[in-house]
C-alpha cells in the first residue's frame, strides 16, 4: 500500500509540473481550449504514473474534398482532390519504474483512394524516446526524440503568433505541426541526448542547474520535401551546454551552443569536378541575467522584474572542391630509338584531381536584448506587460535559435492542378499557395512508390552531382508495391544554415512568422524596441496588444534586382497588433461557453520590398446544445509589395519573361460543428473557403501588362476522432 501511495504522490506532482509546462506553452494564446487541454493532460499524467506498458493514442477516420476553381487553371486541369483516410496514432509507453519511461509512437495510415494499389500498409514509427527523472529528481534526461529550449538567442524556435486565433484555426495548425512532430512551444525538436541537473536548495542559492545537450541535425540540401528520399549524406551535429543559478529571485546563466558539420562522412564520398561542399560551424556563447520580485516581495499584488541576454556568435564556413595538382615521379625506362636501346630516367608527370579545402566565411557578431516586465492579478484582472530593447549585429548568427518551423510557400491542397500559361505556373512556383493554406492545412498520404516519387541518380558513387535518372529506375518499379508516406505540409523541424538563409530570397514572400523578426529575437541586423500587454479579466474578457519598432541597417534590395549589385538601405519596421476576446456565455449568465474573438495586426517596412502585411482575425467558439459545439473562424491576410512588386524572372533561357507580384490577398472562412459522440470521441464536420488573389505586372516578349491570378478552394471535411 505504501508503494501505491508513493506512486499517486508522484502522479500528482507530475500533473502539476505538466500543467505548468502547458501553461507556459500556451502563454501566447491564452485560450480556454488550451486550459481545458491542460486539465486533460493532468488527468492523463495521473494515468501515466502507472507502471508497465500502456497503449493509447488517437484514431481518426475522415474524408476531405477540396474543390478548386480558378480562371487561370488550364481547361484540362483537375479541380477536385479527395482524401479519404483512416489514421491511427499509437502511443506505446513503458514504465519500468516511476522514474523512467520509454515512449514509442507509431502511425498507421490508410488512404482509401489508393486502397487497391496496395494491399498492405507499413507502420511508420515517428517518435522514439527514453525519458526520465532520476537520482532523487535531480536529473532529467531525454534520449531519442526530444524538445529542448535554452534561451531566445541560443536554442529556440520562433513561432507564428496570431492573436486571438479561434480554436477552429488553432486546432488545424496544431494538427499540421503534429504531423511533423512539432508543437507550438518555443522548444526545438531534436534527436539525441539531453541531460539536465537541478540541485534544489543549496544554502542561499535556490537552484543550480546544469544541462548538456547533444543532437544529430539533419543536413539538408533541400528544405522542403519535394520527394520522399530527400537526404544528405553529410553529418551535422549540435553540442549545447548551460549552467545557471537562482538566488533571491535573480537568475544568472551561461549558455553555449555549437552546431557543426562533420567533414569525414562527406569526404568519404567522391565529388565531381564541378561540386563544392560547404562545411558550416556556428558557435554561440551567451550570458543571461534575470530578476523577478516575487521571491523578495511576495506580498505585492504584482511582480516586476527583467530578463536579458547577451550573446556572441562565431560563424565560419570552409569548403571542399576539386583542383588539379601536379605529381611527378622518376621511372627507369628503356626506349628503342632507331634500333638503339636507351635506358634513362624518365620524369612521369600526372595531374590528379585533389580535394582542396579553403576558408570561405568567418563572421563574429553580438546580440543583446533586455526585457522589463510587470505582471500580477488585481481584483480578478490578470495582466502581464513587457517592454524590451533589442540590438543585434548584422554579422550575428545563431542557427538553433533562428530557424522557424513555418516555411510556407508550398501547395497543400489541389496540388495536381496546373495552369493555363507559363506565367501563372511560374508565379505559383515562387509564391506557392496562400500562406493561410500553408498555416492551417496539411495532407498526409500513404502512396505507392513509383517513378515520379523516387529520387534516383545515375551515378551512385557520386552523391552530389548528376541529376540524371538512374539506370535502375525502372527496375526499382518492381518493388512490389511498397508504400511510402508523403507529406504536403508547410512546417518543418529542420534548421537553416546561414548560407541557405542568405540564398533563400523566397522567405521574404511569406512573412507569416514575423515581418520584422523572421528569425525570432536572434534575427541578424535589428535594433529597436518592443512592447506587449496581455490581460485576462476573470476568463470573461481577454485583451492582447503588441507594438514594435525595429530598424535594419543593411537591408539589401539589390538582391532582388538580379544585377548582383547591393542596394543597401536602412529599413524601419513598424508592427502593431491587438486582440480582444469575450466569453458572451458567461456575460449572459449562461452555463456554456460562447467565445467571440477578434484581432487586427499590421506590419510594414520603410525600405527593401516595402511590404505591408495586414491580418484580420475573427472567430466564434460556442457550445450550442449538449454535445454540439459550433466553431467558426474568419481570417484575412493581405500583403502589399509597394516597391513596384517583387521582381522575378521566369520561363526558359530562350523565352524568358519577367513578372512583379505587387499584392497578395488571402481569405479563409471556416465553420464547423463538433459533436461529442461519447467520452473522448468527437465527430467534426467542417467547411472551409480559401481564396487567394495575386496581382501582378508582367513583361512577356516585350509586351507589358497587368493581370491577376485568383484561386478559390472550397473544402469540405468530416472526421471522427477517438482518443484512447
Amino acid at each position, binding site marked *: 500500500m505504501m508503494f501505491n501511495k508513493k506512486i499517486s504522490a508522484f502522479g500528482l506532482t507530475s500533473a502539476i509540473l505538466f500543467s505548468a509546462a502547458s501553461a507556459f506553452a500556451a502563454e501566447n494564446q491564452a485560450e480556454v481550449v488550451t486550459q481545458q487541454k491542460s486539465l486533460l493532460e493532468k488527468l492523463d499524467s495521473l494515468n501515466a504514473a502507472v507502471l508497465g506498458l500502456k497503449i493509447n493514442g488517437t484514431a481518426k477516420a475522415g474524408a476531405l474534398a477540396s474543390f478548386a476553381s480558378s480562371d487561370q487553371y488550364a481547361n484540362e486541369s483537375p479541380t477536385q482532390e479527395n482524401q479519404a483516410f483512416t489514421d491511427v496514432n499509437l502511443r506505446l509507453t513503458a514504465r519500468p519504474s516511476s522514474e523512467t519511461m520509454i515512449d514509442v509512437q507509431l502511425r498507421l495510415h490508410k488512404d482509401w483512394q489508393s486502397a487497391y494499389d496496395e494491399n498492405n500498409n507499413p507502420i511508420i514509427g515517428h517518435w522514439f524516446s527514453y525519458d526520465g527523472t532520476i537520482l532523487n529528481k535531480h536529473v532529467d534526461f531525454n534520449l531519442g526524440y526530444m524538445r529542448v529550449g535554452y534561451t531566445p538567442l541560443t536554442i529556440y524556435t520562433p513561432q507564428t503568433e496570431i492573436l486571438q486565433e479561434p480554436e477552429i484555426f488553432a486546432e488545424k495548425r496544431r494538427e499540421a505541426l503534429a504531423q511533423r512532430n512539432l508543437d507550438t512551444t518555443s522548444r526545438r525538436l531534436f534527436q539525441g541526448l539531453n541531460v539536465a541537473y537541478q540541485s534544489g536548495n543549496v544554502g542561499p542559492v535556490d537552484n543550480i542547474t546544469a544541462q548538456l545537450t547533444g543532437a544529430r541535425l539533419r543536413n539538408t540540401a533541400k528544405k522542403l520535401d519535394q520527394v520522399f528520399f530527400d537526404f544528405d549524406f553529410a553529418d551535422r551535429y549540435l553540442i549545447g551546454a548551460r549552467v545557471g543559478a537562482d538566488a533571491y529571485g535573480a537568475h544568472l546563466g551561461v549558455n553555449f551552443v555549437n552546431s557543426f558539420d562533420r567533414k569525414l562522412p562527406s569526404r568519404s564520398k567522391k565529388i565531381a569536378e564541378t561540386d563544392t561542399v560547404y562545411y558550416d560551424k556556428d558557435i554561440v556563447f551567451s550570458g543571461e541575467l534575470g530578476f523577478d520580485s516575487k521571491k523578495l516581495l511576495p506580498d505585492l499584488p504584482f511582480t516586476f522584474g527583467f530578463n536579458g541576454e547577451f550573446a556572441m556568435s562565431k560563424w565560419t564556413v570552409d569548403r571542399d572542391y576539386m583542383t588539379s595538382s601536379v605529381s611527378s615521379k*622518376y621511372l*627507369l*625506362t628503356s*626506349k628503342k*630509338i*632507331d634500333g*638503339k636501346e*636507351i*635506358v*634513362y*630516367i*624518365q*620524369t612521369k*608527370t600526372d595531374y590528379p584531381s585533389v580535394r582542396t579545402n579553403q576558408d570561405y566565411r568567418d563572421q563574429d557578431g553580438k546580440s543583446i536584448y533586455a526585457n522589463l516586465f510587470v505582471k500580477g492579478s488585481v481584483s480578478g484582472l490578470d495582466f502581464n506587460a513587457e517592454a524590451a530593447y533589442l540590438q543585434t549585429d548584422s554579422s550575428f548568427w545563431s542557427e538553433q535559435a533562428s530557424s522557424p518551423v513555418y516555411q510556407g510557400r508550398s501547395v497543400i491542397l489541389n496540388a495536381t492542378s496546373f495552369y493555363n500559361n507559363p506565367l501563372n505556373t511560374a508565379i505559383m512556383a515562387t509564391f506557392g499557395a496562400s500562406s493561410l493554406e500553408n498555416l492551417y492545412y496539411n495532407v498526409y498520404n500513404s502512396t505507392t512508390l513509383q517513378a515520379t516519387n523516387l529520387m534516383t541518380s545515375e551515378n551512385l558513387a557520386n552523391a552530389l552531382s548528376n541529376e540524371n535518372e538512374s539506370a535502375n529506375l525502372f527496375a526499382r518499379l518492381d518493388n512490389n508495391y511498397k508504400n511510402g508516406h508523403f507529406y504536403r505540409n508547410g512546417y518543418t523541424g529542420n534548421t537553416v544554415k546561414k548560407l541557405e538563409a542568405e540564398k533563400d530570397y523566397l522567405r521574404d514572400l511569406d512573412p507569416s512568422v514575423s515581418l520584422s523578426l523572421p528569425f525570432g529575437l536572434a534575427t541578424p541586423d535589428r535594433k529597436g524596441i518592443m512592447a506587449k500587454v496581455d490581460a485576462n479579466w476573470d476568463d470573461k474578457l481577454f485583451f492582447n496588444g503588441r507594438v514594435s519598432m525595429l530598424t535594419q541597417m543593411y537591408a539589401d534590395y539589390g538582391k532582388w534586382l538580379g544585377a548582383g549589385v547591393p542596394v543597401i538601405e536602412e529599413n524601419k519596421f513598424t508592427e502593431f497588433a491587438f486582440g480582444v476576446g469575450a466569453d458572451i456565455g458567461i456575460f449572459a449568465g449562461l452555463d456554456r461557453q460562447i467565445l467571440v474573438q477578434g484581432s487586427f495586426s499590421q506590419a510594414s517596412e520603410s525600405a527593401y520590398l516595402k511590404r505591408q502585411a495586414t491580418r484580420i482575425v475573427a472567430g466564434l467558439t460556442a457550445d450550442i446544445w449538449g454535445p454540439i459545439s459550433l466553431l467558426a473562424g474568419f481570417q484575412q491576410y493581405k500583403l502589399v509589395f509597394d516597391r513596384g512588386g517583387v521582381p522575378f524572372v521566369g520561363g526558359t533561357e530562350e523565352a524568358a519573361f519577367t513578372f512583379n507580384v505587387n499584392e497578395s490577398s488571402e481569405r479563409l472562412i471556416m465553420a464547423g460543428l463538433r459533436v461529442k459522440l461519447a467520452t473522448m470521441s468527437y465527430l467534426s464536420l467542417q467547411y472551409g473557403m480559401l481564396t487567394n488573389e495575386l496581382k501582378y505586372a508582367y513583361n512577356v516578349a516585350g509586351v507589358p501588362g497587368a493581370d491577376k491570378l485568383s484561386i478559390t478552394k472550397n473544402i469540405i471535411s468530416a472526421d471522427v476522432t477517438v482518443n484512447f
Partner: protein
Amino acid sequence: MKKLHHYMMILLAGVLGACSSMSVDDVYGDSFPAGFSNQEYMDIHPELRMMQVRDYVAEYNDQLKKDVGTEAFNAQKTADEAVLFANLTAVQQIYLDKFYCGGSAAVWDSAMQEYPIVQAQNAILAQDPNDKDAKAAKAACKNWNKVVDYVSAVNFVGVADDLTALQNIPVDYLAISQQYQMFGRTHGWAYRACRADEAANQDRRTMPIDSLQRSGVADPADFITDTNLYCRDAAGVDRVILQ
C-alpha cells in the same frame, strides 16, 4: 638529482643538435665515384638529355591537345610542321645538336640531296593526296624521313621559334645522375673522359664482363653487375679505371 639529470638531458640534446649537420644538399654525393660530374656524364651520354627533351616536348604537346581538342591540335600540328620544315637552317641546327636529335652530318647531307625529290612529291600529293607513286617515292627518301622523325619528335606545336624553346628546357641533372646509379654504373657506362695516363688502360670490349652482359640473361636475378668504373677516351673507347 632529478633536476640535474633533466638538465643533462637537455644539454646532451643541445650538443647532439649542434653537431649534426642539417644539410641534405648532397645526400647522394658519397655514392658517386670520385670526379663524377653531372654535366660530364651528360656530355658523354647525350641521348639521356635527348630523351628528357623528347619527353618534355611530348608532355607540352599532350597538354595542348587536351586544352584545344584533338582536331584543332592536329590541324595546328600540320601547319606548324609545314613552317618548321621549310626553314632548313633551323631544322639542321636542331637535327645536328647532340642534345636534341644527335643526328650525324652524313645523314644530313644525304637528306639534303633527297630534299628536292621530297618537295616535288609533296607538290604532286598536294594535287592528289592518294597518288601511289608519289607516296612510294617519298617513302624512299629514308634519310630525309629520318630527319623528319627526329626533329618532329622535339617540335613544340604552336611555337614559332622551336630552337629557343628547346634551349630553354631546364636540365634535370638529378635524372641524369640517378640514371648512372640505377643503370649506368652496373652496366659499365663510362662516367668521365679519360686522363692522359689512362689512354692505355684495358678496353671494356676486350673484357669478359662485356660479353657476359652483352649475351643477356633470361632472369634479372642472373644479371652480372659490372663492378669496374670506366672512362671514355677521345676515340670514344670505354677504358677501365684502375682503382
